[in-house]
């Protein structure tokens, strides 16, 4: 794996992007509270997704030159990376379809949900993305200890997110009369959050295998495609939530 930045620059960049994302999320929340300006929310979400995809998911690596030796690790990693991104493109259509269903069925309304909890789980996922990036940057520079801690924290935060959504939010929503089989509002809410939580859960499982293999010392600065794959997948799940959060919590009139 080639890297152009030295370790401290890369780490600093991770922090910086995290701060931007945090500010944008707060901004998003207040835009929703103060103006109810949907186009603005869409722009903010697109900017956030762009930041994550460029700085955390390193989409530009797709166009990197991997040399011409088809049997080298770098070339195979390039192929794997392409495969992963194609998979994510495919998966994005599921979430796109759910978004279409949400817009068609709910229009400019949204379920009555706990705003604080929504912001909370969003923050948890955002922070987890930060640690994921930190872990990946660390292993790319051969820092195994930071890598292991980062992966572990990401995993825990991921679990926290699932608990927050499925364990808390679903129960609170039920009290607010958002019920799966009563009307379409409940159906859409549980399907969107459920499909997303399912992806987070698979991400946690991937992270666990990465952590386990890291424990066995199977990753090096040069060869750590597994870490990169889990990280890119994890950030993808975060990108999905960047769009789902405003779609469920911020846009439109509360029912």
């Amino acid at each position, binding site marked *: 794996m080639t890297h152009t930045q030295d370790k401290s620059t890369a780490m600093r960049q991770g922090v910086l992007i995290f701060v931007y994302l945090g500010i944008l999320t707060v901004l998003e929340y207040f835009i929703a509270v103060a103006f109810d300006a949907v186009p603005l929310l869409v722009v903010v979400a697109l900017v956030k997704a762009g930041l994550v995809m460029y700085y955390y998911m390193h989409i530009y690596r797709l166009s990197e030159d991997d040399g011409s030796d*088809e049997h080298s690790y770098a070339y195979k990693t390039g*192929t794997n990376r392409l495969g992963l991104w194609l998979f994510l493109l495919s998966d994005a259509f599921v979430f796109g379809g759910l978004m279409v269903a949400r817009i068609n069925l709910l229009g400019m309304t949204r379920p009555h949900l706990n705003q604080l909890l929504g912001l909370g789980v969003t923050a948890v996922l955002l922070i987890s993305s930060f640690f994921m990036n930190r872990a990946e940057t660390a292993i790319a520079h051969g820092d195994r200890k930071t890598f292991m801690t980062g992966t572990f924290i990401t995993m825990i935060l991921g679990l926290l997110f699932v608990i927050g959504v499925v364990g808390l939010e679903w129960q609170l929503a039920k009290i607010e009369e958002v019920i799966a089989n009563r009307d379409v509002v409940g159906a859409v809410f549980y399907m969107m959050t459920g499909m997303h939580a399912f992806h987070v859960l698979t991400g946690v499982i991937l992270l666990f295998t990465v952590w386990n293999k890291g424990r066995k010392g199977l990753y090096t600065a040069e060869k750590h495609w597994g870490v990169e794959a889990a990280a890119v997948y994890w950030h993808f799940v975060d990108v999905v939530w960047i769009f789902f959060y405003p779609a469920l919590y911020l846009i439109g009139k509360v029912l």
Partner: protein
Amino acid sequence: MTNIKPVWRGLFLLVVGALIGYGVGLGLDFAVQKTVSYQAPVAGLFSLLFGAIFFFFGLIGYHGVTKGLVFQVLGTLAGALFVTGIRAAMGLGLWGPFLFTEPAWVLGGLVGALSFLAGVGAVTDWWKWALGEPTSDHHHDEPGWEKYFGVSLDHKVIGIQYTVVALLLISVGGLFALIFRTELAASGLQFLTREFKLFDQNGLQMYNSLMSLHGMIMIVSILLGIAGIMNYVVPLLLGAQDMAFPRMNAFSFWIAVPAAVLLLSSIFLGGFDTGWTGYPPLSVRAPVGMQMFFLGVFVAGWSSILGGLNIIATTLRMRAKGMTAFRMPILVWASVATSLISLTATQLIGLAFQLVMFQRLLGMGFFDPDKGGNPVLFQHLFWFYSHPAVYVFVLPGLGVISELLPVFVRKPLFGYKWVAMSSLGIALVGFLVWAHHMFTSGMNEYLRVPFMYSTLLVAVPTGVKFFSWVATLWKGKIRTPVPMLFVLGGIVVFLMGGLSGPPNATVSTDLHLHDTYFIVGHFHDTIFGGFVFPFFAAIYYWFPKASGRRMNEFWGKVHFWLMTPSFFVLTLGMMRIGLLGMRRRIADYDPALGFDLTHLVLTIAGFLIALSVLIFIINFFHSMKNGEKAEGNVWESRSPEWQVPSPMPMHNYEHEFEVVGEPYDYGLAGSRYVKFANEK
């Protein structure tokens, strides 16, 4: 027993297994229903499953597909019993009309499909990777036929596996068609009557189940068929040793097998009566078979998605030296265009079916107007895949036509770049036309006109293909061996499909044509012209590459000359009565309409087509062992795979090649397409 041929041993055990399964099913059914019913649905299902397991056991013993099927049955039972246990704890009903309750069948079906993959061994290497255990990068299949019944990572083996399963499913789907075609031969109900009873369905219900399943079985078989051709041929054309992701390639194939089992099981679990489209609210009210259908399609969808992913990655990353984009064989262009659609759009049919499944299981009201849902939303999600899907079906076939024409015309493909771009053009425009299936659906009126425009636009790139083909034929030195016959047949039949398209695109005429036999005739033309004919052409053409033998030329010609005229009669007849008032998907028709004679003719034509395909299948298996030896460049092609002796060695080309010219420069003295590393 040991010196009996494995096939006969398998067939003997098939009968034994089917009987045992029938007995087990009867017993279980009796235990739940407390009455003996000789047409019990589960008895049929168990009979099929046990028969299949015993057959494969007799054939290859307990590994590979046998083990997969055993795991699938056990997994299904485990999943179903798990749900039944939970229901017991919750105080809900434990048993349903088909042994288990609907949620139990759904979870059971899913667990069963995943268990199949574990049993067959399609996920073993990934499991090792997850644990950090080493796996071998270089695999070797044992020589012989048994490797085709287990997990192989060789794209050529997988290609043949796909092709053979596709042929098997085509036969099953065709058999279903023959059954209901026979019922339609005269007005009134002849044998699928209201008194008829099989698997808890009366004749009308059975008709609907067979008709609906015919559609989806054929679609799955087409997806497997194109995957077979692409898998076998694309890496060879690119000069790659294998696909980019060989394990995922094997996974894509093997996941289609439990999907087919799930689809077939739907007919035993009450069937379903929605057609392959599964529109709610009808699909919400249909029996449990509906869920098995949804699940089967969902699982088969993953085969298609991952297969497409693999083709794209292989093409982008594994091309031989010097193979720039516009020096790729035209079939590769077509395969990439197809794969782009199956990679992305397939998710939407999966999602649409998933939402209906949840509406059935948990009462979530996505498409239930009483709960604020919208039945038309389903149609949008469904057609967003299912229209582009027809381009998935036909683009590889059109690619095969473009690929083979120059070989048999001895002339370059006319306007290569335009033909290549037209495939991408069709694929991209194909994403924007889905709502033309919904002109009468009650969707927003203002959507109808833009979708009419985008649909008509498809005619332009399709026209480019036709004109280029004709120009390729013009002044060529045309030979007509069997593959070429099917190429030409494909062009004519696809032309009829194409020309009967625009009347369905213009909204006002479609208001009359929608949901009639005109549509049935139209799409059978497009699918036969775009898939079936080229598929047969491809098999006749590449058969020597795979086996080192040729298929019998005489019987190939009989196949062609029997199938083609019968097919013209079939689809033209369908279009004719469709215009006059014959609706789609009906078990019976008003004798006053005067369609009896036409339907009788259509039925005879249908049987003749089936006979021709039977001849093909016999020829296929017979020629494998007894065909005329053909180890050289039988078709005098410039393509790299024909420059090496047949059959293809395990790791493809012994020496890598470099692309040094245009792919189709027939008639240009001294030119060549590829140069191998060992040549001067």
